[in-house]
């Protein structure tokens, strides 16, 4: 255990710590973020009204749209001169969601990841292959600094280039692999094809996340790689990876409650639900300086469990994310909203675009196909012009989503409509 004092803190004491930190965060955002001063005022609230941890539920929610409305830096609670790093995730309308970190935030994040890697059995002497993307995405750099903090050896290989991944895995003696579960399965398959024996190799664990997966995939990964496969959870708005992580008991992900307060709410009414109920996950950050968020609605559906865990940690656990309250898809680790496709079609002059996202998994890689109904406006009598349209759509969609998609032009009324509202997504992946 990386930080036993914190990770096994008695819950009463932990709640006290949370309350102290929550008060500080609320004061910080009230004083420094005009958006929060405004939303608190609308609720007739002042920081002093917070009398106990349970009063958290009085505070207003923050939603993704608020982040977009305050693009790029208006939700930051410190001057930009204090911000040492920004990350960004793809946005639904072309503009990304931007998050910032002070040096202190980066240090805390590294500690959280160090705890996560330790949960997966990592420590000094381990060789950690970080095959999450490096860059604006939080996955690569997040795991990187945490693994270094732990004193492990980091291979910052980033995503892609499967042959090189396998070569370094073998030659450098990787013991822990970090990437999306679908990419891990793909690596496993390729290794088998190239005659690389992972099962009897050095690799012992995988830290997998950034996309939904299942117990079946875990079994498969553990079998083909001869490892223990761990689930890690996070979202850039809250911190990045490391918001929660599975311990060796593999019975849900411990939420780093000294830094984040989780809640489960009814997505319809916004009412806070007791532990054990299924609902939307909401997080309040209580240890962040640059980009604190109050009651951020993740749109992820899960359940919180407070029963004691065999590992001795006292942090509550969240179950594997079971779905979304919106129509977001995660494809190859990238967040995709149907509205992003819509924005591209509107931009090329369609007034009422009809489209469908079809996601499939071939082998272990996700494929996205975008069906677009050809309207009279798009239609041309010449094949060349339609092919140009296809190419333009492919290009624009790739630049907005950050991943490539196959474009399929289809006849009108091909896309199923229910009660006049078109179905936007068909997800054929079986996880």
């Amino acid at each position, binding site marked *: 255990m990386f930080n036993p004092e914190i990770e096994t803190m008695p819950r009463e004491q932990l709640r006290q710590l949370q309350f102290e930190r929550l008060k500080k965060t609320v004061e910080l955002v009230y004083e420094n973020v005009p958006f929060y001063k405004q939303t608190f005022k609308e609720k007739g609230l002042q920081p002093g009204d917070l009398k106990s941890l349970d009063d958290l539920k009085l505070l207003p929610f923050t939603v993704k749209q608020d982040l977009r409305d305050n693009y790029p830096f208006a939700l930051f609670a410190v001057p930009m001169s204090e911000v040492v790093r920004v990350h960004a995730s793809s946005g639904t309308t072309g503009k990304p969601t931007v998050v910032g970190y002070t040096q202190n935030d980066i240090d805390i994040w590294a500690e959280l990841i160090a705890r996560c890697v330790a949960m997966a059995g990592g420590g000094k002497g381990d060789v950690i292959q970080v095959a999450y993307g490096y860059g604006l995405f939080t996955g690569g750099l997040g795991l990187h600094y945490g693994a270094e903090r732990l004193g492990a050896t980091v291979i910052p290989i980033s995503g892609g280039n499967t042959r090189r991944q396998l070569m370094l895995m073998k030659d450098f003696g990787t013991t822990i692999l970090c990437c999306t579960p679908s990419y891990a399965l793909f690596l496993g398959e390729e290794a088998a094809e190239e005659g690389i024996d992972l099962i009897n190799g050095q690799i012992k664990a995988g830290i997998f996340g950034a996309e939904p997966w299942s117990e079946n995939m875990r079994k498969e990964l553990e079998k083909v790689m001869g490892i223990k496969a761990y689930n890690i959870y996070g979202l850039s708005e809250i911190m990045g990876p490391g918001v929660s992580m599975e311990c060796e008991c593999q019975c849900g992900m411990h939420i780093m409650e000294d830094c984040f307060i989780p809640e489960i709410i009814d997505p319809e009414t916004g009412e806070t639900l007791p532990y054990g109920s299924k609902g939307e996950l909401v997080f309040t950050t209580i240890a962040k300086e640059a980009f604190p968020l109050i009651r951020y609605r993740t749109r992820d559906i899960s359940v919180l469990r407070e029963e004691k865990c065999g590992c001795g940690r006292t942090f509550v656990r969240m179950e594997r994310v079971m779905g979304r309250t919106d129509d977001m898809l995660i494809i190859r680790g990238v967040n995709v909203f149907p509205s992003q496709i819509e924005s591209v079609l509107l931009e090329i002059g369609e007034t009422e675009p009809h489209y469908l996202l079809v996601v499939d998994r071939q082998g272990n890689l996700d494929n996205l196909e975008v069906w677009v109904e*050809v*309207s*009279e406006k*798009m*239609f*041309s*009598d*010449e*094949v060349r012009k*339609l*092919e140009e349209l296809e190419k333009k759509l492919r290009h624009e969609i790739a630049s907005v989503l950050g991943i490539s998609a196959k474009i*399929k*032009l*289809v*006849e*009108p*009324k*091909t896309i199923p409509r229910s009660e006049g509202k078109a179905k936007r997504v068909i997800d054929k992946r079986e996880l």
Partner: protein
Amino acid sequence: MKVQQISVFLENKSGRLATLTDVLGKAGINIRALSIADTSDFGILRLIVNQPEEAFRILKEAGFTASLTDIIAVEVKDEPGGLAAILKILESAGINIEYLYAFLEKSSNDALVVFRVEQIEDAINLLTKNNVNLLKGAEVYKL
């Protein structure tokens, strides 16, 4: 001298062409000429019919994406080099041919060919001047 042609977007899946011809047949529309240009994913069906405006309306009602375009219907001597002679005339004037296809039936002893060109007025003037016979829309529709 312009003739109206209907172009329809078709996905490459079985039965679509049959459905379309069935829709037209039931409405009493006769097809005079047709051609399909296709890629691996979709095709464009081009049709010359006896009542283009009516056919266009019916196809739209049936949920097809269609458009009306102007083409010229050219009589080509049914002998070796007949088509080449006409292509040469157009080429020498720099008139670009998008595509062409033949009618199912002949008008007389000559073959009848549909030309879709970018500069349709120029092509009409040029061909007429060179004594090439073009059919009027009304003549084509009632073939």
